């Protein structure tokens, strides 16, 4: 069975979830987890799956955040991106002479993705060929990136503009930059998403014969400044994110080695009927999911829809207590083993001898200290 057929079977009789920059960026957040790798490669709807298995995910998006994001973007792009141009000129000191603006959203009423992508490619290639200082903003370009053997269409709401023969990816986010500082996790997410676009843009231009230097590794991040709605732009170096993404994408190419280890009949199909109700029994689904090993850490609670499922599975392991705690416990895997080694009721295997000694010393100190529980 080919890998693709295998992944299709795992996903079941539904179309695959579309990747976007956010989901591709999320591939870097826990690369060691086979469960996530398989599900992402197969395009499984993790949110639905978790709910069916009895562990609905805690994620949701507040509409206030969505409206604010849209409003900010609309404001920055209004009037042919007047605000943005001012920002690039004044804020970043970039000399932008004449600017032309191209909206690539609709192609004469026909919005097929292949066509839009083709138009994007031809326009960007022409801009690249025309040389430096063509100063063009491209709105709604449609890019493409190979992910796990498939071509994924990426529609950034960003604008790529060209300066000195280099394209810059522009990313608009609605979290605030206050006195020059912004939330580090949010900036990291924005940087990784920008890196996805940089990769896709480089791939596109490579197809036209241009080297990777045609796309700058500095993305322009546009955010509201302080407590107002006025935008501010900062350059963000995404070279590290590019390296990480490239490595992870190439690992995804090798998903077949993972898929081969799975039982051939494995499927996460939810058996959804015409009314949209899922009929797959939860117990059976759980068993199926568990055949693919996971690598749960508490950080999953903030980043993966399967988190509650995997956390429940990981109850009683030291990994569920966090990486640092697991390290401090000498990398012993389960809580019961830790306690058994600590009070001497469990005979340590050869490789556990040192961990056992350490845990016994710790237990003794806790016991003997007045006020410490025995």
């Amino acid at each position, binding site marked *: 069975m080919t890998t693709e057929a295998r992944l299709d079977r795992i996903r079941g009789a539904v179309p695959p979830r579309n990747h976007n920059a956010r989901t591709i960026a999320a591939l870097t957040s826990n690369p060691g987890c086979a469960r996530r790798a398989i599900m992402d490669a197969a395009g499984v709807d993790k949110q639905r799956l978790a709910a069916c298995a009895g562990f609905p995910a*805690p*994620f*949701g*998006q*507040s*509409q*206030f*955040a*969505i*409206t*604010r*994001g849209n409003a900010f973007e609309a404001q920055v792009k209004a009037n042919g991106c007047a605000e943005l141009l001012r920002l690039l000129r004044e804020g970043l000191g970039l000399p932008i002479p004449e600017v032309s603006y191209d909206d690539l959203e609709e192609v004469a009423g026909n919005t097929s993705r292949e066509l839009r992508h083709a138009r994007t490619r031809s326009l960007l290639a022409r801009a690249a060929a025309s040389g430096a200082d063509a100063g063009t903003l491209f709105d709604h370009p449609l890019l493409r990136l190979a992910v796990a053997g498939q071509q994924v269409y990426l529609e950034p709401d960003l604008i790529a503009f060209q300066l000195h023969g280099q394209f810059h990816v522009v990313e608009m986010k*609605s*979290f*605030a930059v*206050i*006195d*020059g500082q912004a939330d580090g996790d949010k900036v990291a997410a924005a940087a990784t998403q920008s890196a996805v676009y940089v990769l896709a843009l480089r791939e596109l231009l490579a197809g036209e014969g241009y080297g990777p230097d045609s796309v700058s590794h500095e993305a322009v991040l546009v955010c*509201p400044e*302080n*407590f107002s709605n006025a935008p501010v732009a900062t350059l963000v170096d995404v070279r590290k994110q590019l390296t990480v993404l490239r490595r992870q994408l190439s690992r995804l190419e090798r998903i077949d080695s993972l898929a081969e280890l799975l039982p051939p009949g494995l499927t996460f199909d939810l058996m959804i009927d015409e009314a949209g109700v899922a009929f797959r029994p939860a117990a059976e689904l759980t068993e199926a999911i568990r055949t693919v090993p996971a690598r749960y850490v*508490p*950080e999953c*609670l*903030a980043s993966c829809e399967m988190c509650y499922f995997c956390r429940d599975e990981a109850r*009683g392991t*030291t990994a*569920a*207590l*966090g990486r*640092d*705690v697991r390290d*401090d*416990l*000498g990398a012993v895997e389960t*809580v*019961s083993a*830790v*306690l058994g080694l*600590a009070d001497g009721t469990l005979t340590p295997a050869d490789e556990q001898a040192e961990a056992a000694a*350490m*845990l016994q*010393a*710790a*237990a*003794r*100190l*806790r016991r*003997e*200290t*007045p*006020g*410490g*529980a025995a």
Partner: protein
Amino acid sequence: MSTLTALARAQAVARRIAQPVATVRHVHVSDRPLVLIPLALAGEANAPLAAMVGDEPGSPRLVVVHQPRNRDQRFAFAAALAGIVVGYVEAFRSAVETIPSGQGREPRVRCADAPQVLVPNPAGIGFVRLLGRSTRFRRSYGEYAVDPAVPVLGRWLTFLAERAEYPGSCLLLAATDALALHWASGQSPVEDLNLAALLGWIDPPAGMTGPEAAAAAEDPVLWPPAGPVTDPTFDNEVLAPLIEACARAGDGTGARRRAESALEAAVSAQLTPTWGLMWRGVGLLRALPPGGRVAARWDGDKDAFTRHAEHLRAGGPPQPRRDSAVAAARRLDWMERALASYAVQRALDDPLVLAEYRMTGEAFVGIVTAAEPGPDRRLGQAAQAAPADHRHHGGPSAGRGRRPAAVPGPARAERAGRLRVAIGPAGAGRTGRAAAGRPGRRGGPGAVRRDGPGAHADPGQRSGGGRPGLLHDAVRLLPAVRDVPAARGDAVDARRPAARVRARRRGR
């Protein structure tokens, strides 16, 4: 390496209830703290939505912004909040106490007590900082004028948030931080940021185990998030329609009033459970006996409060947006010293905390079996041998130069003093000689050399430049009173250098 706390977590999992990791309370809890629970609107830069605030568990006050995107309403919120918070804070300026100073200096005056603000979690501290930033530069005149109380609120909030970064300070505390300092739950530190879950582990309701209570706490309907981030489902299903209704209704109409009441009721329902949790947390902390050095650290907080109150009264400028180079360097130095001193103080106050250092070999405890007299400048003149009524010495940073109590100061001798300390596991029969002022080389189980400036780093325990290591202070950890035999003929008299003390070996 905090193997003991990690083990405590494992024990908590097995016993289904949080385990203590401290025997005393390391934070000051005021008699009259102000609990502040803020809520912010999603997607905006710290746009306040509501706050529940008060210093009495039975009387929470609610301040709500009915149209959170309306900037005038935001500043009206700030003014209303200022009425409560600034009123609370400035009430502490009236009562003063006199501190006798050292020789040659005038006694100085400082506030007898300082305010204490409690927020649910570290994100709450972030909210206070940002709210302070967005209000302290506002003006009460000119274009975009605001109520005069607003910039005052901003400066107090900024003061509190800056002080919160200072290790050992208790003026602004996050409840989850304070609780996690004393108890290890059976979940991960990430999950401990959920106040309801953490309290579920520490103090589960009758009939429930810790994990059951924590699991129940994750249901946002029963236990709404402690903020400032709101639950997205609440936002979409309850909040958005209510805000919309407020906006739609005309000014001053009955419809507007009804819409506003409905909004307030919904927000209050989100905040009230957390309000209860906060006071439960306060109660749990109060039940612990305070550590010996907590009061001294609170004195430092009182000093800082007094200084800032003076600064405001003298009409000083608001805190700058970013630190200058010199201010940053100075602040970093203070923080590093404070961190070192705070760590040492907690270890000296609390045997469970000290046990962590014993585990890594950075401290040891033993009985002095012999003493060679002769002071070393590092330990101060008095640290020679263990007299019968000896008490724990403070570390150099703990006492701020205070002389150790109950040990008379002898005449200086030429060479460094040495203490022979019996340590080691039962039956091991090893003794270590801790040379005063230098780290013991054959110190005891796992004792390692400690380095001076630029020493190597363990994750989470990196050393700054040149601070005396705990081992130096540990040399002062002469045994507690009960371990040294009562005064007998062989008790040492520090003034007679030839005397020796004999003590029983302490087995472990």
